[in-house]
């Protein structure tokens, strides 16, 4: 691993003001995005995956307070002027959102929405950009492209809309594509198609994908590296194979036990309890209330160990 990371997230923290109090939703998360890899961000609902992903493009509402550094191309995304950020968004980093039904503008045609980033960033005229949009629809396997381009989002199914979102994301051939649960709103067969499509495009075009999901089956299929989040903490990160073979953090292990597996190494059961709300985070290790291995040390927060397989847990100080 000698390649330099495309993006370096260092000690990212995100707070929201709720009832006159700043609540930390993401708590000092660090990870790298390497060229041409698929990094999967996993964790239960409410662990802070989406807001972490949105911070990578500084897309959170103004009410969010961000800390840390997001290094990209020698600069810090978090402090760069808005105008400079606008030349990166959509051109070098693109994002597909969790909500395909509401993420497209209802009063603009599909064609215009796909062509827009090309007009904004590539200096194309609308006519040229629409022609390019046609190719993008072919790329995301939407048949009958000419008709589709003239349609409005309400005329498209959820799967189609998510493909349109992917086409928008890919329009300017970004270096990083962030896909936030691109398939949760879709039915199972479409899910597989969309994911396969993303993976195929990644291999053909050479881009890095940050894929957010809580479906570990998906992770096993496409991830190069995995980062596990719990309640705003990054609790474990490792190359995908290693994470599935030797999950270390009690939360990761519990998460893997929730997935049916062919070798049946684990019985299938859900994790008891719930992710704490950001207004009442436990002191010390945030997983402690749900952790079978909790002990005295866990009342103070553990650090993330170093190395390619890093774990944040007092009981795993010895992991290499």
């Amino acid at each position, binding site marked *: 691993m000698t390649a330099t990371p495309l993006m370096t997230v260092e000690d990212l923290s995100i707070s929201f003001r709720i009832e006159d109090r700043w609540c930390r939703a993401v708590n000092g998360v660090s990870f790298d995005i390497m060229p041409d890899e698929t990094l999967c961000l996993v964790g239960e609902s409410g662990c802070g995956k989406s807001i972490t992903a949105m911070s990578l493009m500084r897309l959170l509402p103004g009410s969010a307070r961000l800390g840390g550094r997001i290094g990209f191309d020698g600069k810090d995304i978090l402090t760069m002027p808005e105008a400079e950020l*606008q030349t990166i968004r959509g051109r070098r980093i693109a994002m597909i959102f969790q909500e395909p039904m509401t993420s497209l503008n209802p009063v603009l045609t599909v064609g215009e929405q796909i062509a*827009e980033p090309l007009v904004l960033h590539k200096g194309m005229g609308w006519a040229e950009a629409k022609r390019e949009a046609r190719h993008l629809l072919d790329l995301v396997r939407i048949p009958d492209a000419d008709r589709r381009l003239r349609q409005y989002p309400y005329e498209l199914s959820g799967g189609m809309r998510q493909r349109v979102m992917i086409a928008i994301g890919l329009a300017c051939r970004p270096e990083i594509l962030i896909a936030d649960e691109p398939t949760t709103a879709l039915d199972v067969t479409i899910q597989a198609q969309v994911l396969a499509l993303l993976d195929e495009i990644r291999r053909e075009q050479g881009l890095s994908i940050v894929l957010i999901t809580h479906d570990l089956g998906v992770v096993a299929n496409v991830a190069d590296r995995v980062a596990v989040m719990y309640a705003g903490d990054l609790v474990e990160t490792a190359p995908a194979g290693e994470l599935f073979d030797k999950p270390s953090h009690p939360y990761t292990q519990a998460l893997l036990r929730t997935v049916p597996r062919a070798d049946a190494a684990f019985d299938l059961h859900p994790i008891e309890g719930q992710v704490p709300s950001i207004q009442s985070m436990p002191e010390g290790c945030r997983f402690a209330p749900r952790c079978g291995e909790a002990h005295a040390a866990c009342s103070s927060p553990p650090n993330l160990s170093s190395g390619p397989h890093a774990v944040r847990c007092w009981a795993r100080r010895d992991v290499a």
Partner: protein
Amino acid sequence: MAGFILRRLLSTIPTLLGVLTIVFVMIRVAPGDPALAILGDNASQEALDAFRERMGLNDPMWVQYLDFLRGIARGSLGESMISGTPVLTSILEVLPYTLELALGAVFFGVVIGTPLGIMAALKRNGWLDYLLRVVSLVGLSFPAFLTAILLILWLAIDWRLFPVISTPTGGIGDRLYNLFLPALSLGLIMVAYVMRTARSAMLDVLGEDYIRTARAKGAPMRRLFLHHALRNALIPIVTVIGLYFGLMIGNAVLTEIIFNRPGLGKLIVLALNQRDYSTLQGLMVFSAFLVVMVNLLTDIAYGLVDPRVKLK
């Protein structure tokens, strides 16, 4: 689009029929005998009978009702009981003045209200937002005739910028100049309504997921607001304009009287004073048609702004 308009046109028929029936009943149950009211207490019995016969007042109710509907179907609103002129003719004669007043008011409402509302939304909770909210609240609770009088005192009498009496004649320049003050005073309520709607519509839209998508594409602020957000915010704004256009025609009556302008207002007052029931009935029917037409135009405007509408 043509099919959509046709469908909307057909769907106005039941509404119109309902309104016509209400107007017919209202005029019949209103206290007072039209014959007596018009011919005076001293009129002879023969004169009264002849009048009733001529006006069809002796016919059974249902015959009168069918006559009434038949007349409307033929495009006639009946004749004035006083002068005998067809009501429609008197209306069409003064309608342009009222329409230009109402349109002028809507124009002010839209060109002042929309940008102010959008600005308030963009600077939410800033000083401008608070100021505009207070002003619109005051504006809404202020009776229209009072604003009209204040404007006359201030702009026409003190500053002598505009005429006190609005005479809608002469060339286009003169006409607009005469229209300015009445349209502004009538339009101020509209400004308040449009501003509030524009503000809240814009705030709603700015919180939508597709605005986030547009930001993620790298769209600059201007494009975000003017292209992605405004088009969507226009949908509720168009509704309000349509809704209040009817109200503007109603309120125009007072404004016309204050500024001594010809128009439906003067026609109504005259008909009331003369107990000209048939003219009043015709005026009511006509306003009902007007409101239905405005609603229809609003729906068509929807169809233009929102691609989803045509489907429904």
